[in-house]
């Protein structure tokens, strides 16, 4: 694991941008760009990042940013890569930085097409489990029973397991990451930067707006996601699967913290606790944790 001291100091996320205080997207992006050393063309569909970058004529991000339409991120990236190839520039990374909306839902077709064509690029889904840019409506990534502005009494379906959809395209590199684990994230981006072919990194982003928690708890909640076994950190280089060290321990259900500890800190799950604690729904969410571990391990091992 890279030591903090070894991480480069140069910043590509420039302070004074339009992100909310405590935004975990910018935290993840900081370290992603450090790992890529800024040698990247970043394609950004409609999402929070397209606002965080600030208003014309100023950009809060120190790398080339190509904004594109909501459903078009991966297709635009295919075009960027083709142009780089036509110009003989092989040394530049092409990275899509898209939210869960632009990946799970409206952007899934372009994602699938670009991966099936083996486009040499890195697709990053930074997932705060809602359509955040438009004000936190539910997405295909919103968990069961979470409150959003289009599921006021809680979403009635679980989130789709997008990682399996991506895996079906047999990418050259695939990983999950978490903004609360920046060193692990940094390493995964570094590894990805050395691999050619279609690559996918799925980053969990706690969001003070969408998840409704006191802003300073972002890292704590991100860590609870892993410690409850809810968010599993892993990577796959080709078809070699590896659980990341931070999640390995939680393969054993006895070692996991109860899901309640993750849920009760977030206002979006407050209906599970007030006015009366809904044990049945919490138990469902708890069972769901094991279900996802089962599916993951069954698929990749």
């Amino acid at each position, binding site marked *: 694991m890279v030591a*903090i*001291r070894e*991480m480069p*100091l140069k*910043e590509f*996320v*420039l*302070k*004074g*941008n*339009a*992100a*909310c*205080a*405590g*935004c*975990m997207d*910018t*935290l993840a992006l*900081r370290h992603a760009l450090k790992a890529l050393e800024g040698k990247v063309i970043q394609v950004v569909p409609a999402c929070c990042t397209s606002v965080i*970058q*600030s*208003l*014309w*004529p*100023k*950009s*809060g*991000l*120190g*790398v080339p940013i190509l904004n594109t339409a909501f459903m078009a991120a991966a297709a635009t990236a295919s075009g960027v890569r083709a142009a780089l190839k036509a110009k003989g520039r092989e040394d530049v990374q092409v990275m899509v930085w898209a939210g869960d909306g632009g990946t799970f839902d409206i952007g899934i077709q372009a994602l699938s097409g670009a991966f099936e064509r083996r486009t040499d690029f890195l697709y990053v889904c930074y997932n705060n489990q809602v359509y955040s840019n438009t004000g936190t409506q539910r997405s295909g990534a919103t968990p069961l029973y979470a409150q959003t502005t289009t599921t006021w009494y809680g979403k009635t379906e679980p989130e789709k397991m997008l990682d399996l959809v991506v895996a079906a395209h047999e990418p050259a590199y695939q990983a999950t990451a978490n903004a609360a684990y*920046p*060193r692990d994230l940094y390493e995964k981006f570094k590894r990805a930067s050395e691999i050619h072919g279609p690559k996918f990194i799925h980053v969990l982003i706690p969001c003070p707006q969408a998840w409704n928690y*006191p*802003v*300073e*708890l*972002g*890292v*704590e909640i991100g860590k609870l996601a892993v410690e409850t076994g809810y968010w599993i950190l892993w990577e796959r280089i080709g078809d070699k699967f590896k659980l990341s060290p931070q999640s390995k321990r939680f393969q054993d259900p006895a070692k996991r913290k109860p899901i309640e500890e993750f849920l009760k800190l977030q206002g979006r799950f407050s209906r599970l606790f007030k006015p009366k604690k809904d044990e049945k729904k919490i138990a469902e969410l708890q069972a769901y944790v094991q279900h996802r571990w089962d599916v993951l391990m069954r698929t990749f091992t």
Partner: protein
Amino acid sequence: MVNQVNTEPKSRADMPKTPYSAPVIGSTGKTGSWRTFNPVIDYDTCNRCRTCWLYCPEASIDLDEDGTPHIDYDYCKGCGICAQVCPKKCIEMVRAGQEEAT
């Protein structure tokens, strides 16, 4: 060849043909004005572990060569994550306007 514009135009003649922007610190202004709480570091307890620097979402903590962190109060938005993650608990979030004189 690429017009490095990041100042607001005074006339149409100053405008590029399509909106492209240049990277600059403080793109949304001095976001330090957003704060209601200021992070204050106790340098006697601080062991220069750089954890606060690692987790700052705004990249508004600068490091000396020996790792001493300095909060850039012009841009720090006061989220409080640094105070939460500090292993030595040596960062205090002090209500703005109520700081003790140093």
